[in-house]
């Protein structure tokens, strides 16, 4: 599913004829600068010139940072790793939408957003994910370990170690394995939280609960998983889900809202069965 999307992005990229190559752009950036967790932070305006439309958004920020370093200024801190849209490290609020979803025209990560989506002379607002559960470390970099703690609270299965069992010993219906795989494409980038008007992590948690809960290997811990993961996300200080749908729209992997319904269904069933969260 993801592969076809990325394929489509590349196809439109290579369609650029050199003779018709668009001119490089000059952009005004308004970037959130915050020296540390205790600093109040503010928007600072920068100019960048000679930005190629073929650059990724992060490469454009690299150009800015090189300029800042040469001028002896502090470079803008932002998270990134694979720059291939699969690791979930990068994540910026671009012109008010997570990963620049309002500009991209399709599901994307910040690293896969290309500058051809912008016009010469544009002003671009860049902010970090904002949530109590995601404290700013510096500038655009936030601490997303709250998501790791939600995983720790129940995003696992118990399996005996040793030699790998015969793969066909447990059969999984195709429909279930497809749905589980769709949920498993979540890269934990936190765009759902950033985009949510309630700063809720429901789509993330729902993807993890669905991913394991749909598979036979996830059944023994299914009830305690859902109650513990929901309890942990409340403890981390995330907001509550009100089914608005901004999360799913912002999700680079297009995780569907049906996972949230499945989480709620599992949670109500687990509570009826007597499962209670670990305190």
């Amino acid at each position, binding site marked *: 599913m993801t592969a076809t999307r990325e394929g489509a992005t590349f196809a439109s990229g290579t369609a650029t004829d050199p003779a018709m190559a668009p001119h490089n752009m000059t952009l005004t950036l308004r970037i959130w600068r915050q020296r540390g967790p205790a600093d109040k932070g503010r928007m600072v305006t920068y100019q960048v010139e000679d930005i190629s439309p073929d650059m990724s958004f992060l490469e454009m920020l690299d150009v800015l940072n090189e300029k800042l370093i040469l001028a002896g200024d502090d470079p803008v801190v932002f998270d990134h790793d694979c720059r291939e849209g699969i690791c979930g490290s990068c994540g910026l609020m671009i012109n008010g939408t997570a990963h620049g979803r309002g500009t991209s025209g399709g599901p994307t990560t910040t690293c896969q957003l290309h500058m051809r989506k912008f016009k010469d002379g544009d002003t671009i607002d860049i902010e970090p994910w904002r949530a*109590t559960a995601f*404290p700013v470390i510096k500038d655009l970099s936030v601490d997303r370990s709250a998501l790791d703690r939600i995983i720790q609270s129940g995003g696992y299965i118990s399996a005996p170690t040793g030699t790998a069992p015969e793969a066909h010993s447990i059969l999984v219906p195709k429909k279930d394995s497809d749905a589980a795989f769709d949920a498993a494409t979540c890269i934990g980038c936190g765009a759902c939280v950033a985009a949510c*008007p309630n700063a809720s992590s429901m789509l993330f948690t729902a993807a993890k609960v669905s991913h394991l809960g749909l598979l036979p290997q996830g059944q023994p811990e299914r009830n305690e998983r859902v109650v513990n993961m929901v309890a942990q996300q409340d403890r981390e*200080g995330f*907001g*509550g889900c009100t*089914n608005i749908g901004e999360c799913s729209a912002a999700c680079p992997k297009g995780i569907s809202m049906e996972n949230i319904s499945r989480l709620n269904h599992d949670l*109500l069933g687990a509570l009826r069965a007597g499962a209670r969260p670990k305190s």
Partner: protein
Amino acid sequence: MAVVTVTQPGQRRAPKAAKTSSVFKKVVMAVSGIILVLYLIAHMIGNLKVFAGRESFNGYSHWIRTIGEPAVPAQTTLTIIRIVLLAAVIAHIWAAIALWRQAKRARPNGYVTKKAVAQSYASRTMRWGGVIVGLFVVYHILDLTMGVANPEGPGTTPYDRLVAGFSNPLITAVYVIALILLGMHLRHGIWSATQTLGQSNKRRERTVNLFALVFSVVLIGGFLLVPFSVLFGLVG
């Protein structure tokens, strides 16, 4: 999440955790909402009695107050309905305030620039729209149930209060605006309740949303028939 960054423990202030599960709040919201929607269906159908004439409408109003008589004292059924509705309204408002506060705590400092990608006008106006609908319900009870805010005043028949009220374009306008807001509230509410109670999935999503839209339009259309009919002199 390949890179794990952790701030110093001392720097990280533990966020104030919600006392009640966020999903529990949503379930309270959904169940109380369903009770109120069921009441609205009965209310809308009852209102249509106005087209059967003055006696039919006043007789219906009288019947509601005497259901079960003489086996039970007068107004027993009505009192039970009112207690259930009041409990549902209180539960609905409690859940809304609790989730609103939790959302505020979850993001105390908003974005400098924030744009919606997917959210509907209905979902965006759930909170303030709900407050307005709540205030409207108070006015509506003072106006048509108790009559104290009605041009005809208390002690009159329900039919007279209805005609007197909706003959005034300003009062009709208040009802129309509030009912349209209520319709939007229901459109998102029905979809949201389906999600919260775990009854939605990819296959049903379109149907649920279509049902929510058609249901809201039909219900609110039925409610709007009465004030417009009075205003345009079809009922008088």
